[in-house]
């Protein structure tokens, strides 16, 4: 009996230990699943044309054009390109004329726009330089024109495109350069603000403050890390944004600067904690040797302590940058979110995470816009993951040394 029970116990133990082992791999599994699900959806961004679903682009019959880029189509409809010759295309009537569904009165088109097909056919015949975009279902049986195709997105147009207008019609503009630059811009500003504050504070805590003061400051820093990002955003929105508006006399306080200030504050705890740890691991003997040689405390900090702990401080800054790049809510609330390439801190800009947060709810499931947002998620994941790996690498090297 006892033997049987012991056997059962052993069996149960093996199962429990198996479960423990499985739990041990949970984070690895999660990282793997994140990669699979993000990249599966995001990778499909290159499968579809950016032309609005169900729409066709049509040029008049004698026009040799068969292919235009998304940017060219947009510029044509925005009247930024006015001549076919600007695109290197020879047509009998060089000036480009455009016609779209909403250029007609609804009354003109009849019930269900049934008359549109004939009208557009006639218009295309009358205007050899004509170019139109309309729903394929309204197309007349014998179309007086040629279909114009827009090539799918590729890595170059996606990463290098200067315009992010994912819901533009008839062709969506999906260039994420403004978003990438916006993210880097805000994070760069944040780090510029955070580094001096964090360095001074960590030096104060490790070198100057008495143990009692230091023990008082620790929980303060922890609390700073614990405040939810949406509360930071709220504080930024109600205090910092109006402040910037008043100080710089702007029409709009929602700016990159507001984002940088908030992100800078949010990055403080990360950098302070890690730098302070690094500063405190400097061997006492090194410090005392320097002091014994007659160096002042400040000289010792500058020539001995800082060089010794520089890699640890760098690691802290790297991790702080990673946190800043991925931060969503606070940035979303204070930067104004206009997707333009930033050139000053005093204008609104838009970051990658804020774009995802603001637009995913409105994009249709599985559509190109939806996929593009997942692709943005992939990029964000790659950036932050590499930064984290970099941090581990620096931190590990320190330990080995």
């Amino acid at each position, binding site marked *: 009996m006892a033997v049987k029970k012991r056997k059962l116990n052993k069996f149960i133990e093996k199962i429990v*230990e198996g*479960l*423990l*082992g499985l*739990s*041990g791999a*949970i*984070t*690895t599994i999660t*990282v793997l*699943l*994140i990669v699979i*699900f*993000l990249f599966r*959806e995001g990778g499909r961004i290159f499968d579809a044309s950016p032309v609005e679903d169900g729409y066709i682009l049509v040029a008049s019959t004698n026009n040799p054009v068969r292919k235009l880029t998304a940017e060219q189509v947009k510029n044509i409809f925005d009247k930024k390109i006015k001549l076919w010759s600007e695109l290197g295309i020879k047509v009998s009537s060089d000036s480009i004329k455009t016609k779209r569904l909403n250029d007609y009165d609804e009354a003109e088109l009849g019930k269900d726009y049934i008359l549109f097909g004939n009208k557009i056919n006639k218009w295309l015949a009358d205007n050899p330089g004509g170019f139109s975009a309309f729903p394929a279902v309204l197309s007349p049986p014998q179309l007086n024109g040629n279909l114009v195709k827009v090539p799918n997105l590729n890595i170059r147009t996606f990463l290098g495109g200067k315009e992010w207008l994912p819901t533009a019609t008839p062709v969506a503009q999906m260039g994420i350069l403004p978003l990438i630059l916006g993210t880097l811009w805000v994070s760069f500003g944040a780090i510029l603000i955070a580094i*001096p*504050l964090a360095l*001074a*504070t960590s*030096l*104060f805590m490790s070198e100057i*403050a008495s143990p009692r003061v230091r023990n008082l400051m620790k*929980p*303060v*820093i922890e*609390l*700073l890390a*614990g405040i*939810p*990002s*949406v*509360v930071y955003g*709220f*504080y930024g929105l109600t*205090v910092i944004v109006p402040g910037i508006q008043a100080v710089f006399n702007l029409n709009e306080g929602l700016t990159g600067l507001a984002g940088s200030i908030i992100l800078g*504050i949010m990055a*403080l705890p990360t950098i*302070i904690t890690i730098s302070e740890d690094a500063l405190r691991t400097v061997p006492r003997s090194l410090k005392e040797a320097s002091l014994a040689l007659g160096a*002042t405390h*400040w*000289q010792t900090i500058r020539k001995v302590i800082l060089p010794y702990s520089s890699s640890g401080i760098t690691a802290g800054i790297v991790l702080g940058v*990673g*946190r800043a*790049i*991925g931060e*969503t*809510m606070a940035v979303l*609330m204070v930067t104004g979110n206009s997707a333009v390439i930033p050139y000053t801190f005093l204008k609104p800009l838009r970051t990658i*995470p804020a774009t*995802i*947060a603001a637009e*995913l709810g409105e994009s249709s499931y599985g559509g190109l816009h939806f996929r593009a*947002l*997942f692709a943005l*998620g992939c990029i964000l*994941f790659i950036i*932050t993951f590499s930064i*984290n790996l970099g*941090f*581990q690498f620096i931190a590990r090297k320190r330990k080995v040394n």
Partner: protein
Amino acid sequence: MKANPKSERRKKLSQSTVFGLFTATSILVVGILLSILSYIFYNGIPALSWTFLTDIPRDNMTKGGIYPAIVGTLCLVLGSMIFAFPIGVASAIFLNEYLQENFFKRFLRLMTDNLAGVPSIVFGLFGMALFVNQLGFGDSIIAGSFTLGLLVLPVIIRTTEESLKAVDDTYRIASLALGASKLQTIRKVTLPIAFPNIITGLILSIGRVSGETAAILFTVAAYFLPKLPNSMYDQVMALPYHLYVVSTSGTDIEGGRAVANGTALVLILIVLFSNLLAGFIRKQYTRKNRSK
């Protein structure tokens, strides 16, 4: 060689200038925190009342209370902890008690640290793709809880591991020497000793979960839903998302300012309370250990 008194004085002066600067900066950093806290408290306290905590939002969320959001956040905290706490603790036990220091262990730990650095909006995307769509939970408490659970796993694993590491090896050896199996040792000796510290980690992750917004945007959070959830497949309102909505995208942002102030205060109180409680437990525990 005699030291030049002039350069000595200059050295002293530059040192005291720099140190003064450092001290001032530290005061500034503490001041930033205090200014945020006092701003939230100063504006939030007038908005706080019993009705505010127990009533549903009214008049386009400019009046009434935040009861559904409080309940929603409680549901999410509970759901994510039921899922993440046992798995996180189990994971830490495996890492600390079973694995030798080798490549495999280093790899698992690396993954845990990297997961901690994944932005929460990426968790939101992932949760939407896996739990909401692939597994068909829809926008629901269960989808949000799983997403939040995965998000705080690294925190729980890390703190549990630290607490297990702090347990003196003599306890383990003594237990094993008495004939207890490894699992018995963990259950009866190691875990009870490490327990208070593990609870500290749990409390801190509760603070983290209740303030998290980006991860619940597309997995559970409802813009406006003035009723309580019936099952774990329901959507709920949540405090952080409510604060976001009321302060940025509500129909009447100026009118909703009081509600936003109150909501921010409730969020801060949760975080403050969990930090204080965690600190208190940690202190109690270290004192008890020292007196032994």
